[in-house]
């Protein structure tokens, strides 16, 4: 997900301009010179300026390239298999969290959590022999701690817990 500075900088310019405009159109407090509109206006302009500076590469010389730590005596870690869609794997965790938001009320905590654990575990390279028991047991453990001990109202859904 390493994007060129010109892309992220331009995005910040747009974001800053939008924020400044959004602040500008907010209704002022009657009879007062400053209201809710001032702060977004200032921040938006600042952000846009920073974005411009980044586009033009100001301050780039301060950045330190992250060095990869070789594992053993300069023998670097084997590069992971790079497919076109490989980078998209990073989006899996947030996608699973959104899945939790959509499904938890209907399926219940235990089932949703089991799916999340199984998918995450498999994506990180676990065999089904490890992922399946983990998916079966860990939701109950978490439910015991949060649902029972800390009384977080976790949705019961299709499969209520025995306690």
């Amino acid at each position: 997900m390493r994007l060129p500075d010109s892309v992220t900088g331009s995005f910040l310019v747009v974001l800053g301009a939008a924020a400044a405009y959004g602040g500008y159109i907010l209704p002022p407090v009657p009879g007062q010179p400053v209201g809710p509109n001032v702060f977004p206006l200032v921040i938006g302009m600042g952000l846009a300026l920073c974005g411009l500076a980044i586009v033009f590469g100001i301050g780039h010389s301060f950045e330190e390239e992250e060095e990869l730590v070789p594992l053993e005596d300069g023998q670097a870690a084997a590069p992971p298999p790079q497919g076109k869609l490989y980078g998209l794997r990073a989006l899996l965790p947030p996608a699973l969290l959104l899945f939790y938001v959509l499904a938890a009320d209907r399926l219940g905590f235990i089932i949703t959590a089991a799916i999340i654990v199984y998918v995450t575990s498999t994506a990180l390279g676990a065999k089904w022999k490890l992922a399946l028991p983990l998916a079966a047991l860990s939701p109950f453990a978490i439910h015991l701690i949060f649902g029972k001990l800390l009384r977080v109202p976790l949705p019961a859904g299709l499969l209520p817990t025995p306690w």
Partner: protein
Amino acid sequence: MLKTLLDAFALISTWEVIIAMFAASVYGLVIGSLPGLSATMATALLVPVTFYLSPIAAIATIVAASSMAIFSGDIPGALLRIPGTPASAAYADEAYAMTRKGQAELALGAGVWFSAVGGIAGVLSLMILAPPLAEIALSFSTFEYFWLALLGLMCATLVARSSPVKAIAGMFIGLLVSCIGIENPGGVPRFTFGITDLFGGIEPIPALVGVFAVAQVMRAMLTPEPPPLPRRKFGSIMAGQWRLTKLYHWQMTRGNIVGIIIGVLPGAGADMAAWVSYAMSKRFSKEPEKFGTGHVEGLVEAGASNNASIASGWVPSLLFGIPGDTIAAIAIGVLYMKGLNPGPTLFTEKASSMYAIYLMFIIANILMIPLGIAMIRVAAYILLAPRSTVMPIIMLCCAVGSFAIGNNMFGVVTVAAFGVIGYVMEANGYPVAAMVLGIVMGTMVEQAFVTSLIKSDGSILPFFERPVAAILAAMAIGALLWPVMVWIWRKVKPAQAVAATTR
């Protein structure tokens, strides 16, 4: 004074606090020792649990878990050359070189011992610095608070190990996030886009969990698994530490002081303290050529430094609500929730609670020695746990924890969104710590700014009229112009060099 101290003792000598502290210590040690799980993440995932504890027990868990995790990150650093937390990254190479020379015990023992010493030095700084500063801060008006907040935000950008422009941009993004909601001077919905869930604004805690926990799971998806730890027998771990203390007492003290200073600076935390102290140790060492070959001197100084910064990071947090580091940023959220709103009056009105915090820090750092030794001995077994079992549990904790904060599914959406934001920012060199600072301090900055503007009736002069405000203003403006001056200087210098050679 004595009565307050006795009250504080009474506050912490309940079973709830003792159990919470012990459990949080073990939790911190385990999370810190697992590569890829940082001390900040350990603290962020603790927050939902703290809701159900009494205020003192809640703070106890944060104090214990964060101190332990910072030490515990040394363990895989020394044994695998993979730092368990970013705070151990500075000297992981050195510690690993010692392990290869057969001095694993000495390296890890130095980690435990000087972490504990550093932690206690940090608490002392908190005890000595905070009350007199509170005295001064009582006379602060919104003008001083505005400049102080601005100075805090600028500090975070100055110390970032990245481009200062990107750090400032990160800070602005954080401030922009804090604009969302109806909690603004006009009480109008701002940047809510008609979504009711956004009316309450973005809660800092789910945002922090997203940035530090979800983003980490996302990174784990793309990085190879660290190798398992070879099992080994350890000799005596504390042997020779007293000799090291006497030999390197000056390095240790310097590490403590540097750690304390960096901890107090907003936004700069344990990892920065370790980097600076390690570099200083090398710079001022009598035998710098030994560095990198398994020399314990740098470990002593950096280990003493990163733990000292943990406690001193609480100084600006407790006094002004300006977080000294990312862990303190989370602690501030918990303090507000528990009715211990940060501010100078905390030291007069809730003095016994403050003493309780000092005591808990001291206890946590003493407890670190036996627990740390035990942890070193069992680390090989804990590190056997593959990432594919740890990360799914982290995911569940993120989901449930962020839901528990408001019993509201929107918290989970926030966590997911900030996971993506944190991941993208980190991947492109935008320091997330600066954004976190912006989110946590945004409301305060805006309040101080707008109230000051209303009071001054549009004039800019009152911002500089009060003496303390003028000093703070000068410092803040200096900090703002610093990167610009460095940039110009760098542009001018090569030109001069060229001019000199052509003459």
